[in-house]
């Protein structure tokens, strides 16, 4: 929870306004029985200025793995593309996909290497998905640390979101219930964190693959 990324005013690169990374965001991922629900807002902020209102923060790494991004957008996009390419090469070479843990570890080792050369990728990410061994969520920090979680949140609004997740998440939730908690947690972060907002993307990962919820679906959960 002491992650400097959670502070939207914290800058990793001092005295350089052009490379000042802003990272107001909230992304959430949680396990339910048989799958993963993930949600993220769509706002990109630069201090008090809203730089974009339609940012994509949920990314597909392969058919059953997703990543959420928070932090410096360029770093995050590069890492997503690089990981996606590497996972694809793994699958093409062997004929079966890598496990979720391998996807997370690969990304963590890329981030660790960069951290050890004194110029870390300014991101914190979640890698989540399902494989032959079940549902998995991993959080990754910019130093290359990786930890397995039942639910996770990153970004400036994560403290707000964690409040909801901590009080409502249970093991073996049904799918509907899991989605509702993820959406409620994000909605709470949107209403209490200035750097989070402009709608949400919600993704569902289950045995059938990755499914994006339509804005209508999301609205239904918010009203329920």
């Amino acid at each position: 929870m002491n992650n400097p990324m959670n502070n939207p005013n914290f800058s990793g690169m001092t005295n350089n306004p052009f490379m000042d990374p802003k990272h107001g965001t909230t992304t959430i991922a949680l396990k339910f029985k048989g799958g993963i629900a993930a949600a993220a807002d769509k706002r990109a902020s630069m201090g008090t200025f809203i730089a974009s209102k339609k940012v994509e923060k949920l990314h597909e790494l392969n058919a059953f793995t997703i990543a959420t991004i928070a932090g410096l957008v360029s770093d995050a996009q590069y890492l997503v593309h690089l990981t996606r390419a590497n996972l694809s090469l793994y699958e093409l070479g062997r004929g079966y996909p890598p496990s979720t843990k391998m996807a997370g570890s690969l990304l963590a080792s890329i981030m660790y290497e960069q951290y050890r050369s004194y110029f870390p990728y300014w991101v914190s990410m979640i890698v989540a998905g399902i494989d032959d061994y079940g549902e998995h969520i991993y959080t990754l920090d910019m130093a290359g640390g990786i930890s397995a979680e039942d639910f996770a949140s990153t970004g400036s609004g994560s403290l707000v979101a964690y409040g909801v997740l901590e009080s409502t998440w249970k093991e073996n939730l049904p799918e509907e219930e899991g989605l509702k908690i993820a959406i409620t947690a994000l909605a709470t972060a949107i209403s209490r964190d200035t750097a989070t907002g402009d709608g949400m993307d919600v993704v569902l990962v289950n045995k059938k693959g990755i499914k994006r919820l339509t804005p209508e679906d999301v609205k239904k959960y918010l009203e329920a």
Partner: protein
Amino acid sequence: MLGPQSMGYDRTTTMYSPEGRIIQTEYARESVRRGSIAVGIKSKHGVVLAGLLRIVDLNEPDLKIHKISDKIHAIFAGVAADGRLLITRSRLEAEIFNLTYAEPIDIQGLSIKIGDYIQVFTQQGGLRPFGVGLLFGGIDHKGPSLHFVDPGGGVMSCKAKAMGEGDSEAIAYLKETYNEDLTTDQMVEIAKEAVRKAARDIELVDENIVVEIMPYKA
């Protein structure tokens, strides 16, 4: 007068024979001719690759058709270890292109990249040319595409192609039956028959013929 062979012109790729041939590269083509047959057909409706799978003793059958990217497959005939290296390289090139341009690679571009790599082995000293012919088939932004890369690094766009042992019989059959309106089902039948023709007297069971279908809708 001594022939080019006995003069030693066939010993290296860094020396032409007096007739302007690079005989080592021609030997490499010979090793493609000894490989198990590989067939590719392209029409308006897609691309079909087919190959003969030689099952030796109690070995598990090897892969004959290799996936390169979402919509590209490759098949090779010749030295298997050489082919494997080029397959791995093709996948890498496809991913690098995708990573750089956020677009899938075009089959001609991929074939030329691999052709360029193969060419180096026909010019640089101390290297042995690749003993494989490669067929890249698939769908890209222009539609169905089928490209052949030879051990000299040459790249050709083909309507249909056969390479490997018995390829002359297979090509003769392809010439007879080919037209640009073939459906994928027809192409599968033709490709299988071309493989059987190449196998000549040897009776083939279904497990011996591998097929990959890449359909295309305009």
